[in-house]
């Protein structure tokens, strides 16, 4: 980790209320993000990674609640008043969304969006200063000043995403959360946006939490990566090490299912991600895990620290002393079948 952490999540939980039991979208996540660091958060759809990203900024939908700690600047964001939290959003914590097409108010010019955002947080700014700063940030994102007074519908999806990023960066936040920022864009635009995000450190000194399901992006752009499964971070560490030697079977399977030039046959992880209202007991991955042991179905794995600043939650890495007798026996096949059925 480079430098002091900007933001630390400690045992963060975010649940969604439903008519029945709550959905445990984020269930006990601990994660540090260092200054100017780029952290990739990967996982299948519905594993809670978007909820985690928004939970950090306290942007939760109706019916959702958070518990635990998100420490930023010595304060716990989870217990902060909505007003104080709002003041932090923008100048300290930024968010870029997946779908850029609908994120700009269609009735406001691009200039209005910048004006509103800057005025909100720096009320004393003159109009000239607002214009200068907006144009500078937009310029870095490749938007020419001539288009400053245009309306959102006059821009393409890629352009709008650049505008959204500029809108987040114009306040120079310490941390930017980018939630699948390129998923809805085509490949060439995706590359351009990623290049911009990867340069954040150099240009803006901003740390980045990049949420994606695309491992290629992580390999290219990130310093560290966290792998999320069913609301938990199952493995976390420097990108190179994790790619070279995945410690968790889920990470391994996830890496195997990506397509590269060396791919000879398509690989997929059997089964579907578990339902987060009633997750499987023990390790949540055990019904789909090829290496599952008896203990995996019984006890929740304990986080283990490995060499090179890595963390993993998997009984394969111990601790040995907590595994019951013959807990290391492979889990019976039919057990997998039943769990799979459910």
């Amino acid at each position, binding site marked *: 980790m480079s430098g002091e952490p900007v933001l630390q999540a400690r045992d963060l939980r975010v649940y969604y209320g439903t008519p029945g039991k709550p959905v445990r979208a984020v269930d006990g996540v601990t994660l540090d993000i260092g200054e100017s660091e780029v952290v990739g958060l990967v996982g299948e759809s519905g594993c809670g990674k978007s909820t985690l990203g928004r939970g950090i*900024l306290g*942007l939760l939908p109706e019916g959702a609640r958070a518990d635990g700690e998100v420490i930023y600047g010595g304060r716990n964001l989870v217990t902060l008043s*909505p007003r104080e939290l*709002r*003041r*932090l*959003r*923008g*100048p300290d914590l*930024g*968010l870029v*969304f997946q*779908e850029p097409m*609908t*994120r*700009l*108010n*269609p*009735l406001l010019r691009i200039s209005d969006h910048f004006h*509103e*955002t800057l005025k*909100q*947080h720096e009320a004393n700014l003159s109009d000239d200063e607002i214009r200068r700063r907006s144009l500078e940030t937009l310029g870095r994102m490749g938007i020419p000043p001539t288009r400053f007074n245009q*309306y959102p*519908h006059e821009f393409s999806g890629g352009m709008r995403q650049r505008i*959204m990023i500029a*809108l*987040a960066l114009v*306040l120079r936040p310490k941390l930017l959360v980018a939630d699948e920022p390129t998923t809805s864009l085509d490949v060439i635009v995706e590359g351009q946006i990623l290049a911009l995000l990867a340069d954040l450190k150099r240009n803006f000194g901003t740390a980045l939490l990049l949420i994606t399901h695309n491992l290629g992006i992580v390999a290219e752009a990130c310093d560290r990566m966290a792998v999320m499964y069913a609301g938990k971070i199952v493995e976390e560490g420097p990108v190179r090490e994790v790619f070279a030697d995945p410690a968790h079977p889920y990470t391994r399977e996830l890496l195997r299912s990506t397509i590269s030039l060396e791919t000879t046959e398509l690989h997929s992880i059997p089964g579907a991600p578990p339902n987060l209202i009633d997750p499987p007991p023990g390790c949540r991955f055990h019904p789909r895990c090829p290496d599952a042991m008896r203990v995996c179905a019984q006890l929740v794995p304990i986080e283990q620290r490995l060499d090179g600043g890595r963390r993993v939650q998997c009984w394969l890495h111990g601790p040995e002393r907590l595994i019951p007798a013959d807990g290391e026996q492979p889990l019976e096949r039919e057990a997998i079948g039943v769990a799979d059925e459910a």
Partner: protein
Amino acid sequence: MTGTSLRTYLITRLALVVPMVLILLTLVFLLMRVAPGNPIQAALGGHVPESVVKPIEHRLGFDKPLLTQYGDYLWDILRGNFGTTITDNRPLSQIIQQNGAATLELTFFAMLIAIVVGVAIGLVAGRYRDTWLDVGGRMFGIVVYATPPFFLGLLAQLVFGVWLGWLPTSDQASPLTQALLKTHTNILFVDAIWDGNWGALWDVTQHLILPATTLGLITAGVFVRLVRVNVIRTMRDDYIEAARARGIAERRVVFSHAFKNALVPVITVVGLNLALLLGGAVLTETTFNWPGIGHELVLYLENRDYAGVQGIIVVFALVVVAVSVIVDFINAYVDPRIRY
């Protein structure tokens, strides 16, 4: 750039008016002329000798072939000639000028009341969804909408006119005012201001309050419903969440993003509701004996005056089309997306 695209839009929109007007005029013609029965006999109360009917038929052109009548009818309207009534031989242009002005006065103030009351309650109900404010706002909208203008008018007359004696319950002004006020625009409210005749203005305003409030409240019910739903829908829009993610204050998110965007579609609805308002005006004018064009329509309906009814319906049709065009223009001006 924006200017030319706006102009192109306006021209296209205007071109669409022609078929719409033509269809409405044709429908009116078909209904009024092709329908069974002899309209002139009907207007004169039936059992009138042929010798009386024939000259009137000839004057109105009813003795010509149907297609020729249709052609004449369209040509007359194109020249701005909407015909003359059968029963009292009054040119429609005069009805438009005199009674139209009264209707304009009534509908303008009614619309004003409807917009202010309806939009305010709708915004509050939508913003504070599922609170008692919302429940109250919605129930207000529903009950007010469920009240026919003539019943609300009747209640208003009973309470404010008869029991409390605060306000007059019929006519556009007291006879004295009507006799003394000089005519400039036929809109008494404007004429009173024109002359600086404050006594007359007070009298006209007093006469206006009950009818305009009756018609306005009923129209407000529709607005409450629509504005509320629009606010709820807009509050869920992605750019609202994005604005919150930039730390924009909630007040501002609600006022300058949610409310503004929620009100854009309401412009269209206001226009569409002019139709509803005109329908309501017919009823309100009848209830309050307001000398508007709807009041005249009812009189000609009672007298079975086909020419009078047809002329007034044609005028209503043209007003509806004109308003829909104006509404579209306003929309194009407010919402940049429409111009493209």
